[in-house]
């Protein structure tokens, strides 16, 4: 799976970081998302799905493959 983030849309809600801390982090100063892994392994799918679904800014998109 491939994770695509929209940094401009990100509002620092931190939901992604709470759901999938090995995939998402936040920049301390700007509070913007940092993608730690662009292609996380399949065992992280549930976490990453939840992160995308619970992002209030809809800043996370997944592509399969």
């Amino acid at each position: 799976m491939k994770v695509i983030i929209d940094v401009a849309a990100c509002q620092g809600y931190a939901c992604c970081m709470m759901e999938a801390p090995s995939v998402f982090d936040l920049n301390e100063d700007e509070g913007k998302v940092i993608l730690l892994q662009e292609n996380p392994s399949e065992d992280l799918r549930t976490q990453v799905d939840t992160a995308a679904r619970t992002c209030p800014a809809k800043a996370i998109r997944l592509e399969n493959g």
Partner: protein
Amino acid sequence: MRRVVVVGASLAAVHAIDALREHGFEGEIALVGAEPHLPYDRPPLSKEALQHGPDTTGLLLRSPEWYVERGVDLHLGRAAAALDPGARVVTLEGGASLDYDGLLIATGSKARTLGPASQAGPVYTLRTLDDCVALHERLVPGNHLVVIGAGFIGLEVAATARDMGMSVSVVELAPAPLSRVLGDEVGRWFMTCQAAHGVEVLCGTSVERIEAGSRGSKVVLGNGSTLWADLIVAGVGASPATDWLRGSGIRLSDGVVCDQSLRASAPGIVAAGDVTRWYHSLFDEEMRVEQWTNAVEQGRHAAMTLLGGDDPYIAVPYFWSDQFDVKMRFVGRANAAEQIHVERADTSSMVALFGRDGVIRGALCVNAPRQLALYRKAISDGTPWQDVVSA
């Protein structure tokens, strides 16, 4: 199950429908909504949509095609009027009825209105897209807005109106904004923040009455003073939309009473979102939460329960509020806290912790989002209070 009826065209509803189809439910799905609109996103209604006027297409949670692709039979603009759980029938306003094998109740909550004090003139509330349209048209730069109630909606409307160049007064009965839930110290921080942006926050006073006058509406306060208003907005809370369930026999008590897996008290019925009161085993309390993230996750969970699941719903609640440049995020529970400890606070950021029964239950972070992940884990793990609070 042959047919699932989802009542409430809401955030919880679209996530429930997603889960039903993703997990192989091939029967009929009917979606009933009181408003004429497809389900839309509410958080922007007090912020950017209020400031610029709502983009009704941009606010939609799902495109019209999404419902067609999932075979959702839409019944919009007609509220559910009654439920017969024995016959498994939902009756709509106007008399049409839908029978169901599974029913998902997601009717949300509705804005409370002022009591007799509001009789003299229009007092606006903000809950729906139509409310947002009506209010947006009345936010005129230079005019004076009086907001009654310094809860999250009230403070967000105040901030938006101030950003648009209105002069704004907020009246609150409690000693500080948000203090009933977040405590006085946190509340005073928000009061200072609002004041720094030019909002007049008047706490510890009631609104006695509103009269029509020569310069707009005259808001008479309990402390004897008077405010003139071109526009009045009440943000005095919300209550669960359960009127249509009265007399149905399903158990209601400030919401639809559900078990740990979100089942209501009659067979084949689950609930999700603001309307749901359920027992949360992690916090050991019955709760009802009016929060965006809860609606997303409960919608999915209730759908899984309808499909035969039995897992308890134990997600840690999360909510946020944006006011001016303040990004407040809260994880866990603030209600019924025995201890509230402000870890750090300056003019632009704050971290405060909420404890009960010797463990951390909640954390508030203003402009400090990275802390949230740490505290959510501590809350999930039931970490002792003294281990998280700095000396």
